[in-house]
């Protein structure tokens, strides 16, 4: 109960939805990374001073604190799997600090097969899916632009195949003439612009697309996660129930923020002609909105996967996952408080820490059973 209250209060003044302040909060949490070393399972990467990067380790040994280590020196602090070595190199090489850049680094390393053949296959599939999302989004934008120019006529929209062949592409460009006239651009320029636009918003798509693109889907799944967690918390008698409610509250907040940002992105699509007319500005605005959305939903893909996996295993595993998700929340004011003065028998404290072994306790080496479980986690589609 005490815990719940604390979490809510920080959310109210910190998570200010939609504002620039809210985005800073999301950015301070860092980008969740799919490391396979058990101890790094909850690690996040964020930029530190200058162009350097640092890693935040939460939930270490069930404690409340966060450890911050420069990414460059991570290997001196932690014995890592080869996959994670390579991923760190790739991230440093790209100097990736945004969710999109780090996602690309993760996919590149996974594609090599360092996290196993199945994860490699899944990474290739993901890359293909994204390519499809990009194409389909462009097609939908082109269709919107054509129907704007010719509101009365109902004709078959261009298909993927139409855009792939040169002759049909020429036909599509002709049909874009009306929008081009309004925007005082050549049809070629309008087409290229729509293609660029489609590339930027590919992971969101446009409303009423035949497939639901990645981030739009994730925005919906976060709400589902919240309601599942609430239900779970109602049956949970331990203090973890409060934690689950706190995570659910947080998920709802994230979901609402994402909803607003999605709505803002869809406004550009709804007013397609204005967006095209002032593309120089709208281009930057769309990019910024996409970036904000990526930051808002950052990390929830992993949380969803972990929760789904735990749902199949055991109540204890579910408790562990809830605590781990809560621990990756941003560094809170109460986390810096001196803990020793608290009454250890206080109901909110009692048994609230669970230490888990990140390394094989017999040899001190990496526990490859745990590594395999983390690798298997990323093989399932969301």
């Amino acid at each position, binding site marked *: 109960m005490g815990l719940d209250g604390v979490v809510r209060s920080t959310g109210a003044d910190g998570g200010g939805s939609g504002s620039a302040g809210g985005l800073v909060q999301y950015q301070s949490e860092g980008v969740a990374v799919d490391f396979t070393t058990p101890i790094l399972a909850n690690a996040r990467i964020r930029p530190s001073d200058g162009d350097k990067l640092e890693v935040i380790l939460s939930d270490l040994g069930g404690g409340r604190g966060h450890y911050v280590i420069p990414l460059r020196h991570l290997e001196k602090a932690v014995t890592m799997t080869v996959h994670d*070595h390579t991923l760190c190199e790739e991230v440093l090489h790209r100097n990736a600090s945004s969710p999109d850049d780090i996602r690309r680094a993760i996919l590149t390393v996974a594609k090599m*097969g360092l996290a196993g053949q199945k994860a490699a296959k899944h990474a290739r599939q993901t890359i293909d899916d994204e390519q499809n999302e990009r194409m389909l989004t462009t097609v939908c934008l082109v269709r919107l632009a054509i129907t704007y120019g010719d509101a009365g006529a109902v004709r078959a929209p261009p298909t993927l195949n139409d855009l792939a062949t040169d002759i049909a592409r020429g036909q599509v460009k002709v049909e874009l003439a009306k929008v081009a006239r309004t925007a005082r651009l050549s049809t070629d320029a309008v087409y290229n612009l729509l293609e660029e636009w489609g590339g930027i918003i590919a992971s969101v798509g446009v409303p009423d697309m035949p497939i639901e693109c990645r981030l739009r889907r994730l925005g919906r799944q976060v709400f589902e996660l919240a309601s599942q967690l609430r239900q779970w918390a109602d049956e949970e008698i331990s203090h973890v129930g409060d934690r689950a409610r706190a995570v659910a509250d947080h998920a709802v907040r994230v979901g609402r923020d994402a909803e607003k940002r999605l709505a803002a992105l869809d406004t550009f699509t709804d007013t397609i002609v204005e967006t095209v007319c002032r593309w120089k500005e709208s281009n930057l605005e769309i990019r910024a909105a996409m970036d904000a959305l990526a930051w808002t939903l950052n990390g929830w893909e992993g949380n969803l996967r972990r929760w789904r996996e735990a749902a199949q295993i055991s109540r204890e595993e579910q408790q562990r996952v809830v605590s781990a998700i809560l621990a990756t929340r941003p560094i809170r004011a109460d986390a810096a408080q001196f803990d020793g003065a608290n009454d250890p028998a206080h109901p909110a404290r009692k048994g609230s820490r669970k230490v888990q072994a990140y390394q094989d306790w017999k040899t001190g080496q990496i526990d490859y059973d745990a590594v395999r479980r983390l690798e298997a986690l990323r093989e399932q589609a969301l």
Partner: protein
Amino acid sequence: MSRDSHTLEEIRARLFDLSEAQFAELVAYVERAQASDAGRSFSAEALAAMRPRLRVARPQRRPNAERIFCRPFEDLLHDLPAAGKRPGRIARRAIRPAWAVLSRRLDGRLLAAVEREARRAGADAVDWATQSWSSLWNACGEAANALLAEADGDSAARADLRKKLGGADGLAELADMARMMTVAPHVEELRHVLSPAPLTALDEIQTAAVSAQFGALAAEKDTLWGPLAHAVIARMADPVALAHAFGGSDCRDPGLHFLGSAAAGIAVADIDATVAALGGLPAESAPAALDVATHGEAVADRIARLREGLRDRRFAGSFAEIDRVQRGLRTAVSQTVIAGADAAVAGALGEAAGAARAALRENAEARAHALWKCSRFAGAIGMDREVVQAARAVEDAAARIALDRLKALERAGADAAAGAIDAAADDLIHAVRVVELVAGSDKADLLRRRGFDVLDRLRAA
């Protein structure tokens, strides 16, 4: 029929996806199917498919005469396929033939009464034994003893009974069942005092209750303490815990001391049976290697605790016996995990392509994983050297083949096809993952760096 087999597949695949309530419903449905002639074989197969979850969830089953007969020894049941009578355990497969023989000798009125009462009570009321159940246990015990006595006197009757029970093991199982029938009321007394299996240790209240039941049977301790001890031991996660607690000569309570001594014997027999089962697994198979590695760790732990207890004189036993089972485990590890591991890894880096290569690689990784698991308990069973050597052989094979391939490409220079470079890169990654398991991530990362350097040069050329 095909619909049924499809349903069975479905049950197997989604066994652990169902909620407790759904699973209980499914069990009830399948049991109802047993009533009709058409559904009987389906029901038996479905229950066999559901056994893994049944064993964990233990939903309330609808009682019938056969199930009530099994109640005194249900904790003793085991499913190991290997032949041979295990002391203190009863094979599940022995129930059917034994019940078929016994139920024919029972009073029809008694059976009918038990069935009627069971049907009326339903699945919810199986917690407490009734008078008619005790009568059934008595009757079953008497019938079994009569059968065994007849068989003892007459070789033709003996051969007939053996045939009906499926061999000499069946006779031994029937004798054990008869013994359990004689202590059934006492087992029933302990049923709800002891927590459900597996129990890690007995607390004071449980210890007192067990001691009281032994005390009640003190007059016939030569015949009845054994089966009672078997019932208590079967509840435990590891019988060694009982041996540690009560097996020592300082244990004042004669009943508990008997229990502790019996537990030490059964612990060795249990380990022996597990080791024999592991030894029977096929060589050159990745799932078998992982099985041996996973169970081997638990068995090695148990052996170590037995040895420790023996050394501290916590209970009586023989070191030679423990050495024997340890040798058995060593043989199982070297046959299934160590033998052929390097060949499997080298094979996965061979010329195969497509799906065949993917399968070979998965197999090789599983073998390396098994080797890693074994390295964690190799010291405890005196296999350090063998496992380290095997790990080194695997490491050498993987690193050598992957690097040789890259060097060959480098020698070929500009003639090297782009496809060949990609294939060599793929091989390198696989080799790195194998080396990571058997030799640690530092060595594997070194191999990756060396390989990537060559690849960079090749791709730049």
